[in-house]
């Protein structure tokens, strides 16, 4: 019975969030559709180059429905979208969906690994910092996390590359994997594809390539997570239930990792979710620096080329990723915080 009630409230929460997400996506599509068409420059002219004749340009404009009013264009867009068609990219001359399928996994892989770094380093550093508040280790962690927050990820990308790929060649300088490896593309995620064919050498090589860019991308998130977790942990340490746990003689590591951590993690999670999504944007410069063939690089290129379909497609995908990340965080919080799961349950 309890489980049932539990599931029902979680489902309700999920449905609510999904409905809101869809509304947001619709809004984003209108906005980006309009903006992409308002910015100056004729996409057909840019695509065909200065040597194309006026007829050729006019023909392409008709083909893209650019001669029609903007709401008619949006109508065409929605009709095609319903069939899973985002149109043809003028830059690559391929369907936008094909481009996205090619570039998105590389970026997602980078962001997921960065996210793992963010959680795997940020949270424990915050816990240790709070546990040894005021000691040397706390000061060191606070300085390091402040450094992480203070510089944008592309600065860290350059610094890390110089330090650990150039002066001290521990890691490769660029790319996703060494050219010696031929990996069949199944999911596009190299770390998964290599495991699927049980090529562990290639897996290690891909992992070796992803460490530096992912770390550069994660550093500010690590700093933020550590600082936030520390602050929340310190607040929780002042609560009566921590004193009660001490009075029951639970070991300090258990008090930190269990009794204080779980109530403290809830506010950190919301920020981590936002950081996670923000990495999609930050990934661009990191991808550029490490020659990482990802979606962010593609996105910027198509914006510069005024490749309408590709711009709209990329922005929609990034928005969807953002919303999914937030949805996951909301569910996690509901799982961790019984008050939310039981809808602010009263006494």
């Amino acid at each position, binding site marked *: 019975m309890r489980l049932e009630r539990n599931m029902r409230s979680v489902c309700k929460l999920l449905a609510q969030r999904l409905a809101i997400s869809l509304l947001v996506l619709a809004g984003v599509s209108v906005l980006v559709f309009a903006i992409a068409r308002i910015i100056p420059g004729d996409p057909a002219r840019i695509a065909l180059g200065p040597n194309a004749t006026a007829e050729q340009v006019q023909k392409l404009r008709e083909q893209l429905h650019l001669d029609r009013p903007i709401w008619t264009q949006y109508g065409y867009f929605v009709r095609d979208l319903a069939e899973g068609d985002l149109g043809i990219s003028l830059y690559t001359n391929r369907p936008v969906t094909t481009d996205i399928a090619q570039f998105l996994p590389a970026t997602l892989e980078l962001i997921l690994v960065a996210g793992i770094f963010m959680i795997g380093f940020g949270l424990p550093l915050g816990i240790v910092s709070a546990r040894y508040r005021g000691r040397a280790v706390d000061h060191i962690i606070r300085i390091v996390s402040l450094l992480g927050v203070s510089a944008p990820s592309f600065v860290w990308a350059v610094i890390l590359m110089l330090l650990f790929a150039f002066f001290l060649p521990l890691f490769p300088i660029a790319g996703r994997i060494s050219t010696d490896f031929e990996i069949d593309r199944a999911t596009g995620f190299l770390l998964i594809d290599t495991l699927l064919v049980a090529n562990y050498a290639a897996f290690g090589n891909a992992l070796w390539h992803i460490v530096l860019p992912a770390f550069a991308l994660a550093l500010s998130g690590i700093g933020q997570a550590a600082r936030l977790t520390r602050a929340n942990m310190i607040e929780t340490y002042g609560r009566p239930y921590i004193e009660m746990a001490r*009075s029951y*003689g639970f070991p300090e590591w258990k008090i930190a990792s269990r009794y204080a951590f779980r109530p403290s993690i809830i506010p950190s999670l919301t920020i981590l979710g936002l950081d996670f999504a923000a990495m999609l944007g930050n990934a661009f410069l990191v991808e550029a620096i490490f020659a990482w063939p990802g979606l962010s690089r593609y996105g910027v290129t198509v914006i510069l080329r005024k490749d309408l379909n590709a711009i709209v497609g990329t922005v929609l995908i990034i928005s969807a990723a953002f919303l999914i990340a937030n949805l996951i965080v909301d569910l996690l919080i509901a799982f961790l915080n*019984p008050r939310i799961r039981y809808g602010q349950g009263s006494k």
Partner: protein
Amino acid sequence: MIAPTLDIRDLRLTFSGLGGSVDVLHGISLSINREERVALVGESGSGKSVTARSVLGLLQSLRGTRISGDILFEGTNLESMDESRRRQLRGTRMSMIFQDPVSSLNPVYRIGVQFREVLARSNPGIDAAEARDRAAEILSEVSIGEPGRVLESFPFQLSGGMNQRVMIAMALVNEPALLVADEPGTALDVTVQDQTLRLMHRLVQEHRTSVLFISHNLGIVREFTDRLYVIYRGRIVEEGPTGSVFRAPGHPYTRALLAAVPRITRDEIPEFEADPGKFGAPKVVHGPAGNSA
């Protein structure tokens, strides 16, 4: 002769911080025999809660705390014991009940989960079913009708009185020799507090637990304790069997404290025998010895 359950000898405690140091306890001596229920009575800031926490060893690890004197538990000196051995005693041989039951239980774990971890303190290998049975058993001892439902609940789903009963049950489930109750139920309303204290009283009698009862409420102290110590500005100013102290308080502060209890049987406002100015606002920084005697 059997050693007393708790024997505090000349306990002194100083907190020091950036602004200098503050003497909080100026040599407290107090003892509790087996199965005895002893009250430590005083106003806010007199040092009662600090004494309770020092017994459990909760203040010793704080930075800037200086403690001297001996705390003997069943004949063993806790102050000379190493920290991990002392920690082993907490939750198994001695436990504590806090003022506010609702905020003292962890908000993100179910009561049953918290109970199991407390049980695992004395029986690390206890399995879920066994822990559940044992918890349900002690919950019904504190008159909880549906122990199953309570064990499935989070603290915020239960009333303050329910949480209080849970906390009492949790404190006694490992059969400790000493229970420290720090103003239990002060955060609850009076009738609920009375109800739960009666339950606690019955339980400690049945389980033959010694109790150190910290309170400022003399009515409660009179009802539930055998002997009392009066603490004033970090010093014990009077001690004796509860009944005789109430009948014939020796120290002027005790008299003032007793006179402060409103009695509905009298029609006039009680008068202080001693100069009430002397017992005005409690001081955090206590004066030199002899000032308060």
